[in-house]
Structure formats: C-alpha cells, structure tokens
C-alpha cells in the first residue's frame, strides 16, 4: 500500500458520492456542493497520476491542470451561486404575489 493507491481510492469514493448526490439532492446549493466534490475526486486521480515515490519528483503537468481546474471551478461556482440567489429572489417575489 502506497499513498497514491490509498488516496486514489479515496478520490474515487469522493467522486462517486458527489456524482450520486448531484443527481438525487433537491436543493440547488447542495447540488453545487456535490458537483464540487465530483471535481475534487477527479483532481485526486490527476494528482495521484502525477505522484512518484520520493525522492523522484512528481510530474508537474497534472499539477498545473488541477490548479487550472480549481480556478475554473471557483468561477463556475460563483456563477451557479449567483443564479441560485436570483432564483431565490424571483421565487420570493412570486410567493409574495
């Protein structure tokens, strides 16, 4: 058992949980959280693919890809949250009559 195998399996489990919950939860905010967990699970697999037993240095290309992914994810998250806020405002206006 080496760290890459352990964390690779953990990443897979996190991805599976996020995938399942993204399709079954009702609240939009929770769905966004589930999608973010999916993204983290996928990132785990990339980081694990880059891992080399020390003292060999890790592959920097997957690392750069995951950093890009984190920034793209926060952008997508911000837009999703703005839409969730807008939906909540519109629903409140509609229920107020």
């Amino acid at each position: 058992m080496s760290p890459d195998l352990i964390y690779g399996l953990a990443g897979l489990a996190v991805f599976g949980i996020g995938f399942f919950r993204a399709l079954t939860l009702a609240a939009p905010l929770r769905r966004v959280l589930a999608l973010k967990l999916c993204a983290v699970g996928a990132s785990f697999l990339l980081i694990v693919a880059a891992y080399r037993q020390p003292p060999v240095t890790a592959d920097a290309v997957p690392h750069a890809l995951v950093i890009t992914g984190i920034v793209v994810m926060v952008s997508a998250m911000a837009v999703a949250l703005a839409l969730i806020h807008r939906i909540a405002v519109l629903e409140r206006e509609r229920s107020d009559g």
Partner: protein
Amino acid sequence: MDAMLVFDVALALALVGLAWAVLAAEDLFAAVVLFIVFGLMTALAWVRLAAPDVALAEAAIGAGVTGALLLATLRRIGGAESAETTPRPVLIGVGALAAAVTSGLGAAFLAAPAQGPGLEAAIAANLAASGVEHPVTAVLLNYRAYDTLMEVVVLFAAVVAVWSVAQAPEPATPLLGPLHAGFARVALPAAVVVGAYLLWAGATMPGGAFQGGAVLGAVAILALLARDYVPAPAHRAWARGAFLAGTAVFALVAAGVGFGPRMAFEYPPALAKPLILLIEAVVTLSIAATLAALFFGREPEPLGVEVEARK
C-alpha cells in the same frame, strides 16, 4: 514508514466520511462548514502526494474563497429549502448508475500503470529555457501558457456573468466591531506582503500567481466585510479595468513575442523571466479583484438606493 501509512489511511477515511457528511448534513450552514473542512483536509492529502502548489491553491481558493462565496450566498438566500424528496426508484436507479461509473473509473485507475513516466523528463530538460526554476510555474506560464490564458478568460467571464445576473441591492452585513479594526490594521498589510511573496516565490518554489492572487483577494474580501472599502458606482470603470488587465496583458505579451521566427507564447529565453513575472504580477492583481467582486456578487449600486423592505 508504517506510521505514515496509518496517517494516510486515516486521512483518506476522513475525506470520504467528510464528503458523505457534507451532502447528508441536515442544515445547509453545517454542510458549508463541513465542506470547508473537507477542502482543507484535501489540501493536506495533496501535500502528502507531493503536490504543494495544488494544496496551496485548494486551501486558498477551493476551501477559502469558495467557502466565503457559499456563506455569502447562504446569507442572501436565507437557508430555506423545499422539503422535496427524491422518489425511491430514482434513488436506486441513480445509485446504480453512480456505482457503475465509479467502478468503471476505478477499473481504469487500477489498470493504469502506476508511477509510469509522465512528462517530468521533458519538463526537466527544458526548465533552463523556461525562465523560471519551478516546474509547476514553468508549465503554467510557459509550456501550457495558452491554457492559463484561457483560465484567466474564464475567471473574467464569470465576473461578467455574475454582474449581469445579480443586481439587486441587499441588506448590509453586520458590523464587525472595534477589535476587527485593530486586527485589520496589523494583519491586512501583513497579508498583502504574504500575497506578494507567494507571487515572487513562485519562480523558484511552490507558490505563484493564483495562490498570491487568492491571498490578496481574501484581503479585499475582509476589507469589504468590515466596510473598510465600500464599492461605489464611480469605481466601476476601475473595477472593469482590473478584471480585464490580466487577460489583456497576458494576451498582448503572448501575441507580442510572436513575430519573425517565433510563434505566439514563445518567449525569447533571455526575456522569459521578466515577461513571466510581468504577466504573473498583473494576473495576480486581476485574480484578486475578480475574486473580491465575485464575493461582493453584484455591481456597486448608486449611493442612496435604499434596500426595499421585503414583506
């Protein structure tokens, strides 16, 4: 070595348990707090996997800024949820689908050659010509600079979308009190220095534009929370300039080096380091401004617009 194995297994189990707890939490606030904890634990795992740059980015952006965005949204929507539940057949069907997808991914992961040679040899061979000494920064700002330019464009597109969607003024946040003012006087300048240091350190060791930008963005978020800085409509032009500056400077430099025998993005080796640092410095400021604007969540409204009372 065995002690580390125990640590790895415990951390991996904690990650899976936290992921489940985030989505099973009754209360949305608890879910968001658990999610932030999950992000920090992820960063810890990535340090164990020898990826300190990614761990820094995940802790600062994936857990920190994302957590702030989630908490701000939670406050705006008030945390009320519909009591809608998913019907059992859908749960079973989606469960089977998720299990199938995850098993397929797992089979591919276990069959893939572990620790096989990747691109690290090619990176090491060309590091001298890249202008920086740190492999991740070399990949981000030189070898795969086009990806990074597109990433800055995505961030820019996000702030455009958020400003277009949300324009409603909202109730003011509670004041943070005198103790916070004292904290801000000491800690915020120190944090600005830390952000600039992370940017500078990125040339030779873990760090860089995204981590530094996230720290500066956090400083701006704190200033917004404490109302040390109040956005006004007159600042909109400056803000738009700050959002665009990263993309513009990056694209201009990339296109500017592409004349004669060189292609775009092919920095002359002698100028590579100053050009990369120039791009990184402007991108850092752009990221900080954009993250703070995403947190603020709307265009600054004209002064004197009162928040409409909601019945």
